[in-house]
């Protein structure tokens, strides 16, 4: 192996800094240019093929990247409700092409489940805080409330009963954390090209979201709540 150190006359490899200034390229560091790479030198066969292979690889990489990009641009999208825009106007119950509507209430437990007088569950001023039908806000009895360890409650929406009327959402948003919200349920929605509810939604709350992540749930960043997920 040749001595990489300065040749007579002295010199330094710019990239690696070895040797002394003014020296010819005697350094063996990877950064040092080799004679065959000098401008004007004839490329060898190996260099030619090496270059060709590198070019082909770069081309292929570009093609694959653009294909992936195009594919991801074309990911299927579906309709969803932005719960931070929805004003719970009741149109979701009335305008879906399906009966009952594909829009259902969801209760986001990480945001709330603590209220004894839950305004998403009870009528304003109920006769008693019991599960009797006349005390419940839901006109169809779609919300099931179960006491967990005191003081927590769990809510289960019976989706076959929920008509998406948003009455529970009004109660919850007005008084509470907004853990009750409407969502288009994708096990029902037929993903109309033009969602009939989106056309009439007064809050512009319908948006297209990627089919791979089809739900929009509130979180603490929006609601600024200490216990929200």
């Amino acid at each position: 192996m040749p001595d990489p150190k300065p040749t007579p006359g002295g010199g330094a490899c710019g990239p690696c800094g070895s040797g002394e200034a003014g020296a010819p390229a005697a350094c063996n560091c990877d950064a040092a240019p080799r004679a065959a790479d000098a401008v004007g030198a004839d490329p060898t066969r190996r260099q030619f093929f090496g270059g060709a292979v590198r070019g082909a690889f770069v081309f292929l990489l570009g093609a694959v990247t653009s294909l992936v990009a195009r594919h991801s641009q074309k990911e299927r999208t579906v309709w969803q409700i932005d719960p931070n825009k929805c004003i719970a106007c009741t149109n979701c119950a009335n305008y879906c092409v399906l009966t009952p509507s594909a829009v259902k209430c969801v209760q986001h437990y990480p945001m709330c489940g603590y209220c004894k007088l839950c305004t998403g569950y009870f009528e304003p001023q109920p006769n008693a805080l019991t599960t009797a039908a006349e005390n419940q806000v839901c006109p169809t009895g779609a919300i099931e409330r179960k006491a967990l360890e005191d003081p927590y409650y769990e809510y289960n929406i019976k989706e076959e009963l929920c008509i998406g009327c948003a009455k529970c959402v009004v109660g919850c948003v007005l008084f509470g954390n907004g853990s009750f919200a409407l969502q288009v349920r994708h096990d029902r929605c037929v993903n109309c090209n033009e969602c009939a509810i989106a056309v009439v939604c007064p809050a512009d709350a319908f948006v297209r979201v990627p089919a791979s992540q089809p739900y929009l749930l509130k979180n603490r960043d929006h609601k600024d709540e200490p216990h929200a997920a």
Partner: protein
Amino acid sequence: MKQSEQHQDLSRRRFLRGAGLLGLGGAVGMVSPRPAPAAAAAKPARATEARPAYDLERFRKTDPALVRYELAGRFDSPYPELKRLCLGPDASLWLTAGKRVVALDLQGGKKTEFTASEEVRCLAAAPDGRLLVGLKERIEVVDAQGRRQARWDAPAKKAWFTSLAAGPADVFASDAGNRAVYRLDWNGKLLGRLGEKDKAAGVSGYVVPSPYFDLEIGSDNLLWVVNPGFHRFQAFTFDGRLQQTWGDPSFAIEGFCGCCNPSYFTRLADGRFVTSEKGLARIKVYSAAGKFESVVAGPEEFPKYFENLNATPIPMDVAADSAGRIYVADTLGNQVRIYRRKESA
């Protein structure tokens, strides 16, 4: 399995599991605006079926015979995002607006101001004129000119300070994040925690669904704390013995409605309570024993609170001076409203 059966009882857990749960914050960038409706897509002609509404109308009107206060004055907050207020011993009205803390005279003239490093969530004035400023996870002590004298970190992780009370020797702080009330000395040293769940002592523990968890030291030398999930006041000795409770959940005027109410309160010089509720924005007065007495301002005084369902209802903090005037932080109107008892009342 039949399709209808498949759709039955999709529980919260199953929904969250199946949904590929997506926090909205993270999702915003992926949401595409909905395509413009086709030209022909005018509103569908389909008639809107009548659905039973969530009916609060009867609670939005107050029986005039119960309103024993009148508006005596109001002035705009010098900055947007008015949130908390308290009265200092030198007749200063301290306001918070975002990161700013401003001292005004009782006519609204500015006396001093300073800016905190982050949003101010609560404040309390000590009898000697010092001010406690609560940030989310920190308490700062400032002098009457707004110069910082001390800074105390929260005693627990994930703190979310919501209210402060300052006595001559003790400081109390409520932490909604940990559902805890701390007793500190003026060096910031933790002396104890009050009101933790204790079945044997009949203490329920705090239920705090949202960051409204107010407290104040009474002239009875008790610490009064709102246990908001239970719509109830609890009074503790400074060493944590539960002495009194009162308050009932109700949409009716005598009770506390909705969730996390009363959101804020203050005491009048004679020991009566002034309470402020969210949802149904109403300010009321209760006797020192907790008996409903009168209304200062009913929901009809704050129509902005009903304009937009998704304008998060921001509760209105209250303070009272020695003359019995009540100062209300009208957060949506961004102004301080001052009420005095009607002469005829």
